[in-house]
Every structure is written in structure tokens, then in C-alpha cells.
């Protein structure tokens, strides 16, 4: 063994001077570094010199465009403010009109009960001749002495006696004789002030009790459970919050590459009236929040724009308490309450600065299985269609917010949403 050692030692160990090309080697290394750096500097310098002080032609109408945009901006602000005020005013007038309509309905009902009194005076005359008590007579029960008091009958005997006579003796047509007699009787009934409280009108007992002002007089509140089926489109606002500064790049990348799209939701719920104005609604909602992932893929052949869809599918149980402002056919209800999120299923992919390929949302997105309790508020407008077997059309703009993040607590980037949309549907009473 020592011979081999001696061989190598003799061949190599006797070299006294270090390799003469170490200096050259070091120079070459330095030169390469400098060359790279100088190439960068040269590249930057070339672009800076060529472009920094460059001027370009301006479209001839650019000044006009700027003046118009500057003029329109304050006008746009005033018009927007005016539009909002008009909308509020219209809503207020509509609300006033609805309550006025309800009052008018109740008032009409009260007038309708009084109208039949006139024809009943004629009819009551016939009834009196037949010996039956007349409502008009009952209402104005005179206490003239000698008046014969029967159950409900208080017509002065002289008037009564004259009624039965002239019609038969005068030869006049019966109807002609009856009418004037009825009028005399009516006037006598009016003149004869009752000395004791009059018995209530029979008509009042026959008619249904009038509801208080502001209620749906024609359509009494249905009892039992009503079913509602709604379909809506929605817009979900995605918000990212940093849990740690290291996730800043990830947040920037996701904000730049993910864009909201319209989502949808389908709701099946039952509602029950708790009182005249309060109702409770509960059910199930299937909702989908949608985003578009967009990025450019660089390859040796060029740049390709890639667009894919991400979605968060959710199953939720809303429980809403509503306060109704009723009208004749139109009914407005303000609803609010919790939304219990039962399930969240993410689908799609996202970009990460540390990876060259997009990652899967379901496996790498750190999403929670459910996001707990959210909050929902909506404004239902219900319009009744049909009379015999009516059903109700519903238009319901809504807003949902989720205080909890959709991602795990330990995730560096917290993802939150709020959702706004509008639902259309039908309501039917289960019998």
C-alpha cells in the first residue's frame, strides 16, 4: 500500500509551485460575475436611455375627453345623490300608500255595512205588514205612549194601521203605495228618538267583524305553514386578511388572479305567521359562490391565458324572523336572522408564489368544513296572484355576511365573504 502512496506522493506531492492558472481561474470567475452584472446594467441602461425621455403622440380629442370627464364627474355625483333621494321618496310614498290602502279598505267595509239599510226600509215595511220585526224599526225604537212593543217591533200603531189600509183601499199599485209608506215610516223612525239604548243592528251581527285599520281586510292571514321555493343569483365579495406577514405575496397573487363571478342559490323554506305582522321562516338553502381564476402561462412557445372556475358550494339553514307591512295584494316583509352554515365544499385551484403550478383548493386551500353561523337580512315583496286558488309571487333582495373565515384558523391567509343577491320565487299554503 505504501508503494501506491509513494507513487502518488512522488507524482503529485513534489509539486512545489501552486497551479499557475488559479489566478486566471479567479479572474475568469470575477469576469463572469462582472459580465453578468454589466449585462444587466447594459440592458437596463438601454431601456432607460431609449424610453425615459421619450415623447409620444397624443390623440387630438384627448383634451375634450378630459374636459368632459371632469364636467361629468360632479354631475354624476349630483345625479346619483338625486336618484338615491328619489328612490327613498318613492319607497316612503309607496309605504304610505300601502297603509292608506289598508285604511281605505277598512273604511269601505264600514260604508258597505251601512248601504243596505235604505233598501231594508222597503223590505222592513213588508216584514212589518207580515208581522215580523224590521231592523229599521228596531234601530229607532220610539217610546211613544201607546206604541205596541213586541220583540223588536216598535212602530207606532197609527202608522202601522195606515200602512195596511191604503194599499188595499186606494187601488194604487201595491208597490207605489208601499214606497211612500216606507218613506213616511223611515222619517218617523228617524224622528222618534229612542229613550233607551237601541238594540244592535241585525246587519252588524250578520257581517264578519271588521279588522282594525291597516290590516288585510279582504285576505285574512292564512294559518298553518306556507311553503316557499326561491331561486336567486348572487354576488360574493372575496376578502383576504393576513394572519402573518409572510402571506403577503400569497394575498397579492390571489387578489390579482381571482375575480368574482355571479353565483346562485336555491331555497326551500316553510313560513308560519306568529301574529298579525310577525312571521317565522326556516328551511334549507343550497348556494354556490363562484370565482374565476385567470393567469398567464409562459412557455417557450409563448404566453397562454388560462381561465378556470372556482366554486364554494354550501348547504345552509336560514332561520328568519319577518315583520310585515301588508297591503291589498302587495305585502312587504323585512326579514333578518341567523344562517347556520352546515357544509362548505371548495372546488378549483389557486396560485401560490412558491409553486409553479396552481394548487388544489380542496386539499391545499385550508378550508373549513363549515363556517358556523352567518347573518342574513332580506326584503320580501309578495304579490298575490289569483282569487280562487291564489299563490304568491316573491321578489326578495338579500344580504348575507359570515363573521367567521372560510379558512382554518391556523391558515396564514384568512378568506372571508359577504354575499348580496336577489331571489325570485313562489309561496303556496299547504292545506
Amino acid at each position: 500500500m505504501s508503494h501506491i502512496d509513494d507513487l502518488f506522493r512522488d507524482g503529485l506531492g513534489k509539486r512545489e509551485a501552486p497551479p499557475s492558472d488559479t489566478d486566471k481561474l479567479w479572474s475568469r470567475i470575477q469576469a463572469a460575475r462582472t459580465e453578468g452584472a454589466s449585462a444587466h446594467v447594459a440592458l437596463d441602461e438601454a431601456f432607460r436611455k431609449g424610453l425615459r425621455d421619450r415623447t409620444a403622440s397624443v390623440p387630438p380629442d384627448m383634451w375634450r375627453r378630459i374636459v368632459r370627464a371632469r364636467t361629468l364627474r360632479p354631475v354624476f355625483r349630483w345625479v346619483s345623490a338625486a336618484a338615491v333621494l328619489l328612490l327613498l321618496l318613492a319607497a316612503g310614498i309607496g309605504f304610505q300608500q300601502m297603509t292608506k290602502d289598508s285604511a281605505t279598505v277598512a273604511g269601505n267595509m264600514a260604508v258597505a255595512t251601512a248601504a243596505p239599510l235604505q233598501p231594508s226600509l222597503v223590505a222592513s215595511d213588508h216584514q212589518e205588514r207580515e208581522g215580523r220585526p224590521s231592523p229599521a224599526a228596531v234601530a229607532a225604537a220610539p217610546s211613544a205612549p201607546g206604541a205596541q212593543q213586541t220583540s223588536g217591533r216598535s212602530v207606532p200603531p197609527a202608522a202601522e194601521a195606515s200602512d195596511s189600509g191604503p194599499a188595499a183601499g186606494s187601488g194604487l199599485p201595491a208597490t207605489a203605495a208601499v214606497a211612500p209608506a216606507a218613506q213616511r215610516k223611515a222619517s218617523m223612525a228617524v224622528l222618534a228618538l229612542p229613550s233607551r239604548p237601541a238594540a244592535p243592528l241585525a246587519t252588524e251581527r250578520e257581517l264578519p267583524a271588521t279588522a282594525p285599520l291597516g290590516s288585510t281586510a279582504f285576505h285574512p292571514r292564512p294559518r298553518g305553514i306556507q311553503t316557499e321555493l326561491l331561486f336567486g343569483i348572487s354576488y360574493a365579495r372575496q376578502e383576504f386578511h393576513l394572519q402573518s406577514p409572510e402571506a403577503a405575496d400569497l394575498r397579492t397573487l390571489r387578489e390579482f388572479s381571482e375575480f368574482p363571478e355571479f353565483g346562485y342559490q336555491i331555497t326551500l323554506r316553510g313560513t308560519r305567521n306568529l301574529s298579525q305582522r310577525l312571521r317565522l321562516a326556516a328551511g334549507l338553502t343550497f348556494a354556490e359562490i363562484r370565482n374565476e381564476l385567470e393567469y398567464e402561462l409562459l412557455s417557450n412557445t409563448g404566453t397562454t391565458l388560462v381561465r378556470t372556475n372556482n366554486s364554494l358550494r354550501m348547504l345552509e339553514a336560514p332561520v328568519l324572523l319577518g315583520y310585515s307591512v301588508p297591503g291589498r295584494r302587495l305585502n312587504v316583509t323585512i326579514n333578518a336572522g341567523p344562517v347556520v352554515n352546515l357544509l362548505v365544499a371548495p372546488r378549483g385551484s389557486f396560485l401560490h408564489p412558491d409553486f409553479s403550478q396552481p394548487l388544489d383548493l380542496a386539499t391545499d386551500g385550508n378550508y373549513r368544513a363549515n363556517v358556523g353561523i352567518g347573518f342574513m337580512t332580506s326584503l320580501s315583496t309578495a304579490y298575490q296572484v289569483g282569487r280562487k286558488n291564489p299563490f304568491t309571487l316573491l321578489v326578495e333582495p338579500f344580504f348575507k355576511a359570515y363573521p367567521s373565515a372560510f379558512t382554518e384558523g391556523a391558515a396564514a391567509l384568512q378568506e372571508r365573504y359577504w354575499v348580496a343577491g336577489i331571489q325570485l320565487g313562489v309561496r303556496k299554503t299547504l292545506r
Partner: protein
Amino acid sequence: MLSMKEKELIDGALRGEEEASRLLFERYAPMLMAVCQRYCRTRAEAEDVLQDAFIRIFDKLPKYGFKGSFAGWARRLTVNVALKTYQRKRYTNEQSGLENIPETGGAPRAYADLGEQELLTLIQALPDGYRLVFNLYAIEGYSHKEIGEMLGIQEASSRSQLLKARKVLQRQIEDLQRIAI
């Protein structure tokens, strides 16, 4: 240092005189249009950014206060408007393998042969993120720290984007050279 003429125009614009505002626009619009073209992909986008930039310039004119060069102040506002426009747009993700492209030195002489229009075309062909960082660093002269603050990214990301932008530009310049030969 502002010339008397410039000062008069700025004063007139501050008083709301349309003639002074228009003359100020005509004086600086060509320079700012060139800035917009560097930050935008297309001429239509550049025109929209220029319109928004001038609206912002006239809105913020009271804040200028005659501190420093008006051209520099207007250029900075224009760059900010261009950045805000692209902060809502798509971001680029590179395919793996780009880092493996060897860094060729490139002949400095080759860069100098490129004309203004060629340089502009090369810049406009860059992906958005690369274009923003390259403009801000190489042409405007901002540091990576300042770029990170402006774009809301880490300083390291700014360096990385610049490196990648240079690689893409070098490759495209070499392609141009090959075509020319």
C-alpha cells in the same frame, strides 16, 4: 426649476382657467403619454390611463405647491394611476423551467442597436407584473424597497420579478437578433 411660463400656466390652472389648463396639458401630454405606453399593453389602455392621469393631476394640483419639478410630479402621479389600473387586473404565473433558461450575457452593443419603437414593443410584450417592476426599477429608478411598498409585495418578490423580466427581454432580443441575421 420652473420657468415663468410654466408657473403662469400652473397658477392659471389653479384659478380654474380653461385656457391655462389646456396649455399645461399640451405641454406635458406627449411626455406622459410615453409613460402610459410603457405601463400599458395597448394604445387604447394608454389613452385611458392618460385621461385618468390628467384628471388626477388637475384634481391634485393644489397639493403640488411648486415643490420640485412639475414634470417629475406629474410623472409620479401618472405612474401611480397606471399602477392602480393594473392592480385589479390579472397576475402572471410563470411555467416551471423559466428559471432554467441560461443567463446569457448578451452583447451590450446589441441593446444599443435597438430603436425606441422596438424597445417599447419589447416592454409592452412583457407580462403585467414583470412590466411594472422593470419600468419602476430600470426606467423610473425606484429601489426594490420602494417598489415593494408601491405594489404591496415583498422586496424579494420585486427582485425576482426583475430578474425574470430581464431574462424574458434578453431572450426576446436574441430572437430579434436571430431574425435580423
